């Protein structure tokens, strides 16, 4: 059975001009246990709405949803067992400025039946040096790592991450990715929304591209949009000018070129479309 299963999900919001606007318009999704699944899409595509329905924050208009075998829309406020099995990292928070990192993490650990050790979690997110610092003094990236610490302290089976690395510097992002891979190794299912294609490519087993509240495609990062079979682009310099060609058979082309040049091809590049090229084409901004 899937960790997350969504069929025909719909959700609309009141809209001043149109009467109502469909934020999610018949969306289907299956996320397997232990998988890192990324949802990509432009702003307003319905990513956050979808995730918040899965987290039990919003009620849907139609369709069927199960998360860990239960319908999040039918979870009553007093049902704490299901909530103990999921972890949520929201988009942005500014709370608990007067508590220290350690106080926050330790406090949240008391909410769960089988929490991780606060000290280990603080170390895992790389905040050991800041453990005694007030939350209000943390940088944006440190703050975000605290959010993740609070999301994983309860040893969740599913972790929801909504744009987790916005505002990170490259080094912080790398170490964050390592943390997510560690969580995957420990068996956690991770649902991630992101703007960053390199992030989806680095982390996700599968990605879904959403526009206008619908799934455009679900695939592995390497095969999305036929990326693996797309023509490769070969560029080089010949007689002082830039040359390029697209080919289904790049290896053969390179060999032929090599014969022509009798060895080294000047400034040779062979590239396949990046995930970004594919993605932009899919959302209609090619």
């Amino acid at each position, binding site marked *: 059975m899937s960790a997350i299963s969504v069929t025909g999900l719909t959700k609309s919001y009141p809209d001043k001009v149109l009467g109502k606007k469909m934020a999610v318009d018949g969306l289907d999704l299956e996320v397997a246990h232990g998988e890192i699944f990324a949802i990509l899409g432009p702003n307003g595509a319905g990513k956050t709405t979808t995730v918040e329905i899965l987290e039990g924050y919003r009620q849907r208009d139609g369709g069927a949803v199960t998360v860990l075998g239960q319908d999040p829309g039918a979870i009553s406020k007093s049902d704490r067992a299901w909530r103990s099995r999921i972890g949520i990292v929201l988009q942005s928070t*500014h709370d608990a400025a007067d508590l220290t990192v350690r106080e926050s993490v330790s406090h949240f650990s008391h909410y769960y039946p089988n929490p991780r050790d606060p000290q280990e979690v603080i170390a895992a997110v790389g905040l050991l040096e800041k453990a005694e610092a007030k939350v209000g003094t943390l940088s944006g990236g440190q703050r975000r790592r605290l959010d993740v610490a609070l999301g994983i302290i309860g040893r969740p089976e599913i972790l929801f991450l909504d744009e987790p690395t916005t505002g990170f510097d490259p080094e912080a992002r790398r170490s964050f990715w390592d943390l997510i891979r560690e969580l995957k190794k420990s068996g956690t299912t991770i649902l991630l929304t992101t703007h960053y294609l390199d992030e989806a490519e680095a982390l996700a087993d599968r990605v879904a591209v959403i526009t206008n509240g619908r799934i455009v495609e679900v695939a592995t990062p390497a095969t999305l949009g036929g990326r693996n079979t797309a023509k490769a682009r070969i560029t080089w310099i010949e007689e002082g000018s830039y040359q390029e060609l697209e080919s289904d058979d790049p290896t053969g082309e390179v060999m032929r070129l090599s014969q022509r040049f009798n060895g080294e091809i000047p400034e040779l590049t062979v590239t396949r479309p990046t995930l970004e090229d594919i993605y932009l084409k899919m959302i209609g901004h090619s």
Partner: protein
Amino acid sequence: MNPSIIRIGFLRGALEIKQFFRQRESVVFTLLFPIMLLFIFGSVFTDTIAPGVTFSQYFVAGMIASGLVNTGFQQLAIMIPVERDFGTLKRLRGTPMSPVSYFIGKAILVTVSTAIQVAILILVGRLFFGLILPTTSERWIRFAILIVLGSICATILGIAFSAVPKSGRGASAVVSPVVIILQFISGVFFVFSQLPTWMQQIAAVFPLKWLTQGMRSVFLPDSFAMREPAQSWEFNRTLIILLIWTLIGTFFAIRSFKWSEK
């Protein structure tokens, strides 16, 4: 098994108190502001307002009553919208913490800050303004009942009113005038019987007027009861009105409490 709701409630209470004392504004606003008012009013109005009753005696009774409104109603009605804005409430809703634990935590915060404020008011009143403390156990029991019921009522109304301010930033501007106007018309800053009748009648709809009257029944001689609107302390009526407001507050708190803006 999930940890007990009550235990988490107490852990939240401890956390709330820790945060309270780390916020300089909340300590100053909640604990020092009433003392400053007591010094100003106590120093300006040195008359006796009735045989054996100084204005300070009258004023301390009123300030203790409005202290319950400050630490219960005002504190929560401002703090909860801020927590909503900052995402605290949304984050908590996403955890297995029961909403009941959250409200237990808030009740503990109100209890502790109220106790401190009342103790400071009585101490300063006693040291600097000749405050006479009640001598009969009956009056102390009445005092305890008023503190407990008044705090519960103010806390619940504060939680209910927290749905009114649209943002955390604007909360103070929405909530504070309500409290200040009530203080003026309910006999905290002025002797209630000297207010215009229509103003007394408006005040009688709201709980603060009854709390101040109840506190006067604790701190003022029984002879002063003749000066109250009904020529008596009306203690039972006070309890009934506080209960009614508590029920109204509970209804709206359950109906309209918002965990996030949208």
